[in-house]
């Protein structure tokens, strides 16, 4: 069994950025495991989005961005292995890995997990109805288009109103499909205006306060019943696309018994991106849903830098303290804090999300003393950044409170 200094699981933007950052910081053997045959992760099939502005100073479309990552990593001495799928994370840094030749165990002094996100499925949303062919997520649609030149439907109903929803609408329209309607269950579009006007501008009706209450079809989708206020109506369509509702792809943590934060649904991490088990680190969208490729890249670089410092001299010894927060705050990252010497890199800010749209005062207190507050209207998928005070890591209690306005 060969041992690496660091194994990275997942070759998306954060994994690649971390690998390069760690190499530059002087980490010896770095192994990057990617289950597909290319780098880029989710950016690879997003043919729409501009990527790369922040990290490379120019714009790339999905697949080209992945190729740029491949060029970048080739400049460094990194043991990059495609077709390697990690099945289990061991407590002591031993990974059970499947590759086309068979099964192997790899081990490392530190493991960085950068497995990204997936969208919430129809099943996980507990949507009523039949279970016909043609019910997919945006990622599925985009991989149909990007890798196989196929389409799963022609006249879908699209659920959601996140940025990815707009991408789904665009993918449909540019590949010969015409969405019948876009439905958002809550009272507001999650994507802000003017982006949220996009479906209507393209002639696709957008309804808020609208949800799919029934899916009909024996073989393929034939119709959906939707509820708008008190009105239930039937819309004929040949597919349903559930967009967004991203959730961290943290299955490896869950199935391996490593600590997961129930708010973010990703691994619990401290200010350095270090997990409860200090052999493990995590970065990028597996920490929380969902950020851009550029964000994930920079986060990977920052956590890679911290990991390198941890490995090369300052391993964590302290037990972590948990960051606490009130409803309706959905998540706080980092959700753990460890005292000890300050490492370079890591997470300099707290990232928050709300469960729902609300108005009120958000405040941060450290050991009972308020250090930050802001009154605003908070939207569920918007990024909220609170600078992390230096004394947050030695504190007994770090708490985000929220006072909702009537």
């Amino acid at each position: 069994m060969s041992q690496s200094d660091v194994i990275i699981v997942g070759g998306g933007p954060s994994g690649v950025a971390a690998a390069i950052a760690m190499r530059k910081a002087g980490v010896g053997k770095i192994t990057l495991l990617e289950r597909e045959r290319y780098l880029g992760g989710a950016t690879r099939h997003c043919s729409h989005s501009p990527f790369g502005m922040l990290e490379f100073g120019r714009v790339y479309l999905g697949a080209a961005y992945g190729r740029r990552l491949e060029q970048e990593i080739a400049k460094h001495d990194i043991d990059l292995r495609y077709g390697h799928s990690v099945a289990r994370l061991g407590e002591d840094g031993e990974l059970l890995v499947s590759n086309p030749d068979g099964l192997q165990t790899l081990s490392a002094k530190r493991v960085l997990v950068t497995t990204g996100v997936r969208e919430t499925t129809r099943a996980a949303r507990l949507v009523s109805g039949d279970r016909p062919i043609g019910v997919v997520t945006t990622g599925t649609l985009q991989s149909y288009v990007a890798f196989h030149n196929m389409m799963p439907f022609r006249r879908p109903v699209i659920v959601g109103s996140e940025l990815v929803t707009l991408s789904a609408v665009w993918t449909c329209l540019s590949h010969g499909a015409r969405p019948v309607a876009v439905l958002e269950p809550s009272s507001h579009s999650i994507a802000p205006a003017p982006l949220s006007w996009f479906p209507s501008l393209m002639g696709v009706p957008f309804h808020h306060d609208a949800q799919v209450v029934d899916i009909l079809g024996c073989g393929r989708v034939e119709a959906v019943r939707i509820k708008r206020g008190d009105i239930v109506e039937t819309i004929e369509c040949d597919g349903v696309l559930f967009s967004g509702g991203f959730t961290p792809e943290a299955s490896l943590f869950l199935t391996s018994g490593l600590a997961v934060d129930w708010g973010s649904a990703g691994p619990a991490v401290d200010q350095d991106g270090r997990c409860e088990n200090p052999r493990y680190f995590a970065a990028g969208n597996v920490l929380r849903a969902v950020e851009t490729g550029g964000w994930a890249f920079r986060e990977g670089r920052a956590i890679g830098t911290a990991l390198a410092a941890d490995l090369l001299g300052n391993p964590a010894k302290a037990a972590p303290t948990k960051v606490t927060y009130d409803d309706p705050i959905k998540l706080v990252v980092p959700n753990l804090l460890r005292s000890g010497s300050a490492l370079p890199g890591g997470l300099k800010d707290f990232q928050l999300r709300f469960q729902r749209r609300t108005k009120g005062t958000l405040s941060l207190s450290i050991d009972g003393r308020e250090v930050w507050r802001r009154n605003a209207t908070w939207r569920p998928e918007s990024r909220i950044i609170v600078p992390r005070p230096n004394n947050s890591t030695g504190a007994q209690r770090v708490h985000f409170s929220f006072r909702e306005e009537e």
Partner: protein
Amino acid sequence: MNAQSQLSGSERFDVAIIGAGVVGCAVARRFALAGAKVILIEKGSDILSGASKANSAILHTGFDAPKGSLELALVQAGRQEYLDIHQAMNLPLVETSALVCAWTPDDALKLEGIAEQGRQNGVDRLRLLTSAEARTVEPGLAGNLVAALHVLDEHVIDPWSAPLAYVNQAIALGATVLRQCEVRAGAFDGEWRLETNQGDIRSKWVVNAAGLFGDHVDARLGFQSEFQIKPRKGQFVVLDKAASRQLKTIILPVPNEITKGVVICPTAFGNILVGPTAEEQDDRIRATVEHDTLEALVTHGSKLVPGLAHIPVTAVYAGLRPATEKKEYRVIHRAEHNAITLGGIRSTGLSSALGLAQHALKLHGGADRGEFVSKAAPKVSMPNLTESRPRDWQAENHGDIVCHCELVTRREIEATLSSPLPPGDFGGLRRRTRAGMGRCQGFYCNAKLAEISKGCLATPLAVDQEDGK
């Protein structure tokens, strides 16, 4: 060899079996082993398209079956035969055991009676446990448990590979399997002539294993149906494989008159199931899931096993059980018409199928009369899909993993597409390989599956490209 053969008008079968659910598949195997020339006729685009596609996958002991009933005898005979053949067929047996859990003092009082019934049914390995003892067996149970009955021999199997193994063995013995073939009418004049959408089928005997359409098929065969199917829907939620760390044992409620109730059950694939509900309905095809019910099942699971809270839902499904106006199996032998109806096989069908098959052969009597020459069982070995034993992704040179959630290899998918009975639809592909059954429900692999399965499935995953760009 492909089982989906064309009918030639002159061919005459010894036995025509209508319905390729788990019962039909087992009956086909039993008659084929006995040496009969068998045809298995399925209306759906694949086997297991009706009631058999959705169940809790428990191999029952019969501890709670009605004393002296045919159901009890056949569950126990079927179970025994499964235990005898599963290793040779590479079918799993997950020795979970079950706990009948009493959550109220009233329910606890019933446990002794249930244990007594179990012993009378010949199920000996039963233990009455205090709450503390039960939680030693299953530490995941909630603290408000009052008492439990431990049924050590209740197990879990793979509910789809087993019937597929049965039908594969029948095929290896020369049986014909027709899918998308619906029996419209039948006439008996010393032998049967079945009128189907694929032409007429001539057979000496007919076995009606049509499940949810058992009464309709009896009527089409010209019989006054002796029962009426009253579909009973069961909804399930399947929790992420992470849940298997929280529970190893089947958790049964103290049963009431109508149903065994909602169980929380490990699957052979490493998930946890919560379900089924029991909802009467008239529709025999549509089995819809309903948001509020699914949510209630999720809540129920985490109430009884608190560690299940926060575990994501991987899949939801619903199935229909072919219940009738009576609780018992409706086995009807019409000797003067060379016909056997196996009707009203509800929740226990997976356990009793092999027993029902033995019973049907006995009722037929042909083997006893020496009409057939029994054949040696050909070797049938199923690909393992369960977590407890090695799978293809762990083997050398598997090529590629297509479905990462369920770790399904390209080699497995290609093998099933070129097998004697390849999947007829996407459900069949999922049941044979587990591809797309995992937590992402195809976020990653659905498009690849669409490519690989192009031209193979009744309803293709991708729509026609012609009108697109």
